[in-house]
C-alpha cells in the first residue's frame, strides 16, 4: 500500500514536473508545480517526515508559489516561448548535459546498495515537529538565527527593489 | 591593571576611540576635534608610560601580551615591544596629536571621518610595530592601508583618486607577496617542528634554516624577496618609489605627515625585523644589492627633488633620498649603522613630517604649493621662516640637530664595509643641501615676488604649538641622542647577533 502510494506520488511528481517545465502557459506551470510539491509533501509524509510535509505545503505551496502566481499575473505574461527557442545549439547542448547529469545521478542511485529506510520511532508517537523544534533551538540555533537574518535581508531587499520603482 | 595591559591599551585605544566617535553627529565638528585631541594626547601619555615601563637593558621583547587567536593554526594575538619598535611607537603616538592639532582649523568636509580614519590608522601603525605574530603583523599591516587610502582619496588634491589607487595597489602588490612568504614560513615551521606557528620568536628558530643556496630560486631567497618587495615598496626603495610623490602631493597635510612620518618607517622596520632578523643568510647575500639600491635612492631622490616645482613633491622625493640613508644603514648592518638607521627613521619622521606640516600651513594660506608662486616670504612671515629654516637644517643634517646624528651613525657605521657607498651617499648630503636651501632661497629670500603674498599672516600660536614638539625633539636628538639611542642598543645587538 505504502509502496503504491509512493509510486503514485512519484509518478505524479515526475509528470507534473515535466508539465511545469514544458507547458507554455505560465499559470499552468505554476499550478503544475503546486501539484509537484504536493506530491513531494506526500512522499515526505510517507517517509515519516510529517513536519516537513506540512512545511512543504505551507511554505512552498502556500507562500512561494502564490508569489509566483502573483508575479505571473502582475506581469501578465501571455504565453512562454517555445521550448528551447532562440538558441538551438545551446538548448541542445544544455539538454544533452542535463540528460547526462540526470543519468549520472540515476546511475549513482542505482549503484548504491539498496536498503530500506526506517521511520524514527519518535515519529509514530508525537510526530517530528517537537524533536525538530528542539534541535532548531539547541544544536542548530546559530543556523536558525542566521536563516532569520537571511530572510530579513531578503525582505529588505525585495522592499527596496519594489520601492525604487516608485521614484 | 593599566600596566598589565599597557601595550594593548596603546594599541587598541585609538580604534576604540574611533568607535566612540562614531555615534557623535558629524556636525559637531568642534566636539570631534576636542575629543580627538584629548584622546590622542591621552594615547601619547600612555605611550610615555610605556617608555618609562620599558627596560632598555633587556634586549628581547618586553611588555608582551599573548592570547590565542586561531590556536589550530598557531596564530595568536602576540604583541610586545623591544628597543627597535619602542621608538617608532612613540613617534606614532607623538605625531597623532600633532596632526590632529594641525588640522584644527582645516575647513574640510567630514572632519569626523578624517579623525576616525586617523585613529584607525594609528592602531594599524602601532600594531605593525608591536605585532610579534606574523599573521597579526600582516593583518595590521593591511589595516593601515585602508584609512590611508581614504585619507588620500577623500581629502586629497585634484588627482587624489589616482594617487590613492596607486598607493593602494603598489602597497597591496607587495603585501600580498608578503602574506605568501608568511604562510610559507609557517608551513616551513610546521615541516621542521610539526607545529604550526606564526610567532616571530618561534619562527626565529626555523626561518634561518631556509636554504639560500641553489640559485635565485632558493626558498630562502624567495621568501626574502617577497618580504623585501613589500617593505621596499613601503620604504620606498628606488625603483618602487613612484607612488610616493603622487601620494604625498595629493594627500592632505595630515596624510602626508603620517605617511612620511610613520608609514614609510613600517617598511624599514620590516626590513630590519623580518628580513634581517628572520633571514640573516639571505640578507648577507643581498647586502650588495640593498646597498646599491640605497645609494641610488639617495642620489636619485636628491637629484629629482632638485628640479621639482612643487614643494610637496620636492619633500616627497627628499623622503626617497632620506629613506635611502636608512636603507644604507640597515644594509651595512653594523651595530652603529643599524642604531643610526633606527634613529634616522625617527629623525625623518620629525623633519620631513615637520616640513609637510609647514608646507601645509603655507598651502592653507595661499592654496598653492608651487615654488614659483612664492619668494621673499621671510619678511612677511619671519617666525615661519625661522621654523622652516630649523626644520630644513635638521633635514639636511646640520650637526647639533637630529638629522646629523642619524646620518653620522649610518655613514660612520657603513664606512668600514662600503666606503665607496658612503662617499656616494655623501653626495646625497650635498645635493640635499642644494635642493633644500635652493627651495628656501626661492620661497623665503629675495624681494617679495608675488603681491598675493604680502601680509600673509605669520604662524599662529596653535601652529607654533603644532611645531613645538617637533622642534624640541629635533634639538633634543641633535644634542643628546643618547636618550633615544640607548634603548635600541641591546635589542639591535641581539638582532644582529643572531
Amino acid at each position: 500500500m505504502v509502496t503504491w502510494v509512493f509510486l503514485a506520488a512519484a509518478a505524479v511528481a515526475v509528470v507534473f514536473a515535466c508539465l511545469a517545465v514544458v507547458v507554455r502557459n505560465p499559470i499552468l506551470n505554476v499550478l503544475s508545480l503546486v501539484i509537484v510539491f504536493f506530491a513531494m509533501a506526500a512522499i515526505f509524509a510517507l517517509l515519516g517526515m510529517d513536519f516537513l510535509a506540512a512545511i512543504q505545503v505551507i511554505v512552498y505551496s502556500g507562500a512561494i508559489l502564490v508569489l509566483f502566481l502573483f508575479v505571473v499575473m502582475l506581469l501578465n505574461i501571455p504565453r512562454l516561448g517555445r521550448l528551447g527557442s532562440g538558441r538551438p545549439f545551446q538548448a541542445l547542448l544544455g539538454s544533452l548535459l542535463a540528460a547526462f547529469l540526470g543519468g549520472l545521478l540515476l546511475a549513482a542511485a542505482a549503484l548504491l546498495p539498496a536498503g530500506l529506510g526506517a521511520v524514527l520511532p519518535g515519529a509514530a508517537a508525537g510526530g517530528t515537529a517537537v524533536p525538530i523544534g528542539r534541535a532548531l533551538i539547541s544544536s542548530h540555533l546559530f543556523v536558525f538565527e542566521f536563516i532569520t537574518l537571511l530572510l530579513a535581508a531578503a525582505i529588505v531587499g525585495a522592499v527596496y527593489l519594489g520601492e525604487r520603482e516608485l521614484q | 591593571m593599566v600596566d598589565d595591559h599597557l601595550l594593548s591599551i596603546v594599541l587598541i585605544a585609538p580604534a576604540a576611540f574611533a568607535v566612540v566617535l562614531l555615534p557623535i553627529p558629524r556636525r559637531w565638528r568642534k566636539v570631534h576635534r576636542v575629543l580627538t585631541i584629548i584622546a590622542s594626547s591621552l594615547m601619547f601619555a600612555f605611550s610615555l608610560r610605556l617608555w618609562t615601563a620599558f627596560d632598555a637593558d633587556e634586549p628581547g621583547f618586553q611588555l608582551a601580551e599573548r592570547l590565542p587567536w586561531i590556536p589550530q593554526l598557531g596564530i595568536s594575538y602576540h604583541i610586545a615591544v623591544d628597543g627597535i619598535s619602542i621608538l617608532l611607537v612613540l613617534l606614532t603616538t607623538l605625531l597623532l596629536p600633532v596632526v590632529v592639532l594641525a588640522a584644527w582649523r582645516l575647513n574640510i568636509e567630514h572632519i569626523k571621518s578624517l579623525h576616525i580614519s586617523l585613529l584607525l590608522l594609528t592602531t594599524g601603525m602601532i600594531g605593525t610595530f608591536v605585532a610579534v605574530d606574523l599573521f597579526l603583523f600582516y593583518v595590521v599591516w593591511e589595516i593601515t592601508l585602508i584609512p590611508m587610502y581614504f585619507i588620500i582619496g577623500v581629502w586629497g588634491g585634484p588627482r587624489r583618486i589616482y594617487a590613492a589607487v596607486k598607493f593602494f595597489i603598489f602597497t597591496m602588490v607587495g603585501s600580498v607577496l608578503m602574506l605568501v612568504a608568511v604562510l610559507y614560513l609557517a608551513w616551513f615551521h610546521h615541516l621542521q617542528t610539526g607545529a604550526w606557528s606564526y610567532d616571530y620568536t618561534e619562527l626565529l628558530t626555523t626561518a634561518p634554516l631556509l636554504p639560500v643556496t641553489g640559485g635565485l630560486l632558493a626558498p630562502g631567497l624567495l621568501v626574502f624577496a617577497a618580504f623585501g618587495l613589500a617593505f621596499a615598496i613601503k620604504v620606498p626603495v628606488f625603483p618602487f618609489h613612484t607612488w610616493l610623490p603622487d601620494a604625498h602631493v595629493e594627500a592632505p597635510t595630515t596624510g602626508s605627515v603620517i605617511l612620511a612620518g610613520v608609514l614609510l618607517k613600517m617598511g624599514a622596520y620590516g626590513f630590519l625585523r623580518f628580513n634581517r632578523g628572520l633571514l640573516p643568510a639571505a640578507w648577507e647575500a643581498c647586502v650588495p644589492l640593498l646597498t646599491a639600491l640605497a645609494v641610488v635612492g639617495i642620489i636619485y631622490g636628491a637629484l629629482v627633488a632638485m628640479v621639482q616645482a612643487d614643494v610637496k613633491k620636492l619633500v616627497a622625493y627628499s623622503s626617497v633620498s632620506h629613506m635611502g640613508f636608512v636603507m644604507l644603514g640597515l644594509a651595512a648592518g653594523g651595530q652603529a649603522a643599524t642604531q643610526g638607521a633606527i634613529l634616522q627613521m625617527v629623525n625623518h619622521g620629525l623633519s620631513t613630517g615637520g616640513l609637510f606640516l609647514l608646507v601645509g600651513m603655507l598651502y592653507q594660506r595661499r592654496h598653492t604649493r608651487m615654488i614659483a608662486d612664492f619668494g621673499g616670504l621671510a619678511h612677511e612671515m619671519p617666525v615661519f621662516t625661522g621654523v622652516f629654516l630649523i626644520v630644513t637644517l635638521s633635514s639636511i643634517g646640520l650637526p647639533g640637530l637630529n638629522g646629523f646624528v642619524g646620518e653620522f651613525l649610518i655613514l660612520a657605521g657603513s664606512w668600514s664595509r662600503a666606503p665607496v657607498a658612503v662617499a656616494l651617499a655623501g653626495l646625497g648630503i650635498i645635493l640635499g643641501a642644494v635642493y633644500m636651501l635652493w627651495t628656501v632661497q626661492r620661497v623665503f629670500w629675495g624681494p617679495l615676488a608675488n603681491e598675493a603674498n604680502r601680509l600673509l599672516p605669520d604662524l599662529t600660536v596653535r601652529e607654533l604649538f603644532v611645531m613645538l614638539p617637533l622642534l624640541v625633539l629635533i634639538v633634543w636628538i641633535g644634542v643628546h641622542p643618547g636618550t633615544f639611542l640607548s634603548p635600541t642598543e641591546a635589542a639591535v645587538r641581539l638582532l644582529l647577533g643572531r
Partner: protein
Amino acid sequence: MLDALWLIPALCLAGACANLVLGTLRAPKAIVAVVGVGSVGAATAVAWATLWAYAGQPLAVVVRPYFTWISAGDITVNASLQLDPLSAVMTAFVTVVGLLIHVYSVGYMHGEGNAAFARYFAYLNLFMFAMLLLVLGSNLAVLFIGWEGVGLCSYLLIGYYYRQLWCAQAGMKAFIVNRIGDLGFLLAIFATLAAFGSLEFETVFPAAAADPASFGPEATVIALLLFVGAVGKSAQIPLYVWLPDAMAGPTPVSALIHAATMVTAGVYMVVRANVLFRLSPTAMLTVAVVGGVTAIFAATIGLVQNDIKKVLAYSTVSQLGYMFLATGVGAWVAAIFHVVTHAFFKACLFLGSGSVIHACGGEQDMRRMGGLRIHMPTTYWTFLAATLSIAGIPIFAGFFSKDEILTRTWAAGASDLNGFGDAYRVLWALAVAAALLTAFYMFRALFTTFHGSFRGPEEVAHHLHESPRSMTLPLVLLGVLSVVGGFVGLPGQLLHLEGLNLIERFLKPVVIPLAEVGGHAAEAAHGAHGIGLATEWLLVLVSVGAAAAGVLLARRFYLGAGAFLLPRRLAERLPLLHRMLLNKYWVDELYALLVIRPLRAAAGFCWRVVDELAIDTLLVNGTAFGVELGADLARYTTTGNIRNYALMVLAAAVGIAALLW
C-alpha cells in the same frame, strides 16, 4: 678657572638665544647691543681668565669631557672641550677680534630695524659660539659641529640682507660649496673612526705618531679628506669661489667671518691634524701646492678688482694660500702665526673698508672714491698700518709671519723635503711673486681710496665723515695689533736669540713632541731650518724687496700725475690677460658649465625620463594597461546571456560530477 671652559662658548650661545627672543619681541637696539656685546665680552673675559690660568700651568693638554654625545656600537663621541696651546692661541685671538667686531657692529648696523638688528647679533653670537666650539673641541666631531655651525652662520650672515636676491644667493653658494668640503671632512671623520676607533685628538694623534708605519696609508686618506674640508672652508682652489661672493654680507661679518676667523678654521684644522699630515708626504705636497697656487692665483685676480671688498676678499684667499703653503712645508707654527697676524690686519682692513663704505653711503667701487684720507684720518692711518702689515713691510705684523713662511718654504726646497724639493722651490718662487702682487694691489687699493681726489658724486662728497667712536675704537685697536701683533713671533734665530719667538715656544708642545716620537724627516727641516743664517737673511731681503717693489709699482701706477694712465694702457696692451683677470679666469662660468648644468640636466633626466617615463609610465602604468588589456579581451567571454552562464555552470557541474565519479 679651567673648569669654566664650557662657559666660553655657552655664554655666546646664551647671547644668541637671548637675541633671537629679543628679535621676535622687537626689543630696542640698546638692549640687543648690550646683550650681544655683553655676552661676547663675558665670554672673552672668561676666555682670557682661563687662558691666564692655563698659561700659569705647565702647558699640558686639558680635556674636559662633559657628556657622551653619540654612543652606538663601537662608536663613541664625547661632547668635550680641550685646551692646549693651539686652541689657546686660537681662542685668544678669536675672542678679541670677535669682541672688537661686535663693538664695531653696534655702530655699523645702527641703521637697521630693531628685529633685524637683533637678528644680526643673534647670528653673530651664534657664530662666536660655533667658532669657539670649533677651536675648543677635543675631537673631530665637536670640531665638526663648530665647523658646520660657522658655516651656517656664514650662510645666514651673508644672506643677512635677504631681500636682495644676490645676497641670499651668495649665502647659499657659500653653504653649498662649503658642504662639498664638509663631505670630505665627514669622510675623514669616518676614516679616522675606522682606523683609530676614536675621534679624540688625544687618542688619535698619539696613536698615529706612535706607529707611523702601520697608519701610513690611512693617514694619507684621512689627511687628504681633511684637506678637502679645509679647502672648502678656507676657500682654496678649487672651492674658493664662494668667498668673494660672501662679501655680500655686512662688512663686519666679512671682517670677522670671512677674513679673521672662520676661513682660517681650515688652517687650524690642518695644524691640529699635523701628525697625520706629517705621516703623508703626498698630503703635505698637495696642501703646499694648493696653498701656493691659490696664493698667486687669487693675488692676480686681486690686481684688477675695483670693489674694495672684493680686493680684500681675494687677498684673503691669497693669504690663506700662504697659510696652507706653510702647513704644506711643515711650518705649522708659522701658519698659525700668520693666521693670527692675518686676523689682525685683515680685520682691520675690512673694518676700515667698512668705515669707508659707511662714509660713502654704501659705495664699494674704488673708482668712485679717492682722497678720503682727509675726511677720515683714523680710518686712513689704521688702514695704512694694516696695508703695510699685509704687504710684508718689516716691523709690521705681517712681515714676520709671511717672512717665516717664505723662509720655511725655501728651506723645504733646500732640504728636499720628502723628496719633493723641486716642487717646493717652485712654490717659493710663486710665493715671492704673490708677495709682490699683494703689496701692489693692496697699495693700489690704499692709493685709489684714500689718496688723490674724490671721484664720487657730489652729494656723497658732502657727507664724507669719520665713523663713530664705536667703529673707530676697534679700528684703532686692530691697527695697533697689526703693527705690534708680530712681535709675539719675532724671528729670534736671525739674531741668535732663540727665546724671542714666543708663539713658537708656546705652540711647540702641539707640534714638536709628537713629531719627535715619530722621528720623521719633516722635523729635520723644522728644527734648524736646515739652511744657513746668511741664506735666511738673504731670504728676508728678497721678501722685503718684493714687497717694496710692489709698493713702488703701485705708487708709480696709482699715485701722482700719471695715476691710472699706466694701468689703462697696460690693459689695452694686454686685453686678453686683462679680461681674464677681470672675469676671474671665468671660473664661476666654468663651474656653471661643468657642474651645475650637467647636474640639472641629470636631475631633469632622472625626473622626466627615468621617473615619469620609464618607471611610472612604462613599468607601472604599463602593467596596469596590460592588465586592462587582458581584462578587455577576457570580458568577451561574458556574453551577458544568463542562459549561457547557466550552461557553463551546468557544464562545470557535470564535469565535477564526472570527476568525482
